[in-house]
């Protein structure tokens, strides 16, 4: 069966799904790992996994949910695999040169690097909240953890980031 015949029979258009979701899948891995090459490997692996499991996909919405869930799992797995490698501590993140203004690229990079140093679960919660704009119950469902834990991770991570940024003089309260 050709790819086109497959689309007609099953409604599964692999190329279209990849165009629609590639940025989401890549960015979940990239923001979680802060490593472009590994993020691309994970994204490729996620889409190949979708291709292998295309028979189980019921709709485009289901594909989106499936891709996000698998991207989260693969990013966490990759992070665990490289746990032995030396990691950058929060205090080692370089000070920004200038004070941040809204959408300041330096502040954005500082934030991404600070997020990359958060522990696994709160890091993924922050990415799903601010990259994917998911609410706590959606994050809880995706990560299979209680909603209360999601809210707690969000509050603590925000407080920690705020404290680090204020200490660095990025923004006054």
């Amino acid at each position: 069966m050709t790819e086109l015949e497959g689309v007609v029979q099953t409604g599964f258009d692999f190329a279209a799904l990849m165009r629609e979701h590639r940025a989401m899948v890549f960015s979940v891995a990239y923001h979680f790992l802060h490593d472009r090459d590994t993020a691309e490997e994970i994204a490729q692996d996620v889409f190949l996994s979708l291709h292998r499991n295309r028979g189980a996909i019921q709709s485009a919405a289901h594909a989106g949910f499936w891709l996000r869930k698998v991207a989260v799992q693969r990013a966490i797995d990759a992070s665990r695999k490289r746990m032995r490698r030396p990691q950058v501590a929060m205090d080692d993140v370089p000070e920004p040169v200038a004070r941040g203004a809204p959408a300041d690229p330096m502040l954005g990079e500082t934030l991404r690097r600070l997020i990359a140093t958060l522990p696994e679960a709160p890091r993924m919660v922050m990415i799903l909240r601010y990259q994917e704009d998911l609410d706590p119950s959606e994050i809880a469902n995706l990560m299979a953890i209680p909603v209360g834990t999601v809210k707690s991770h969000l509050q603590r991570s925000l407080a920690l980031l705020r404290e680090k940024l204020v200490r660095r003089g990025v923004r006054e309260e």
Partner: protein
Amino acid sequence: MDWLEDELKQALRRKEPSPDFEARVIAAAGRRRPVLSMPPWRAAAAAVLVITGAGAGYRHHQGQIAKEQVMQAMRLTGSKLNRIQMQMKAVRP
């Protein structure tokens, strides 16, 4: 939403992978398709059939060889018996 949450949304906005990403994935999916299109249970069943079929074929082949050997032995025995019978006839007065 406060300034930090605004900054986080900016910092964590989605990014695109490299331009050749899609082509690489489609090429990799194409390479894997013949193997990946078969469900694991079907692959296992095919392997069992191949092994069983090969075993049956081997046993059949061995049976044929044994049959040939028996037939050859019978032919040799028959010809020897004939020769002995001819010699006995010649010896008799």
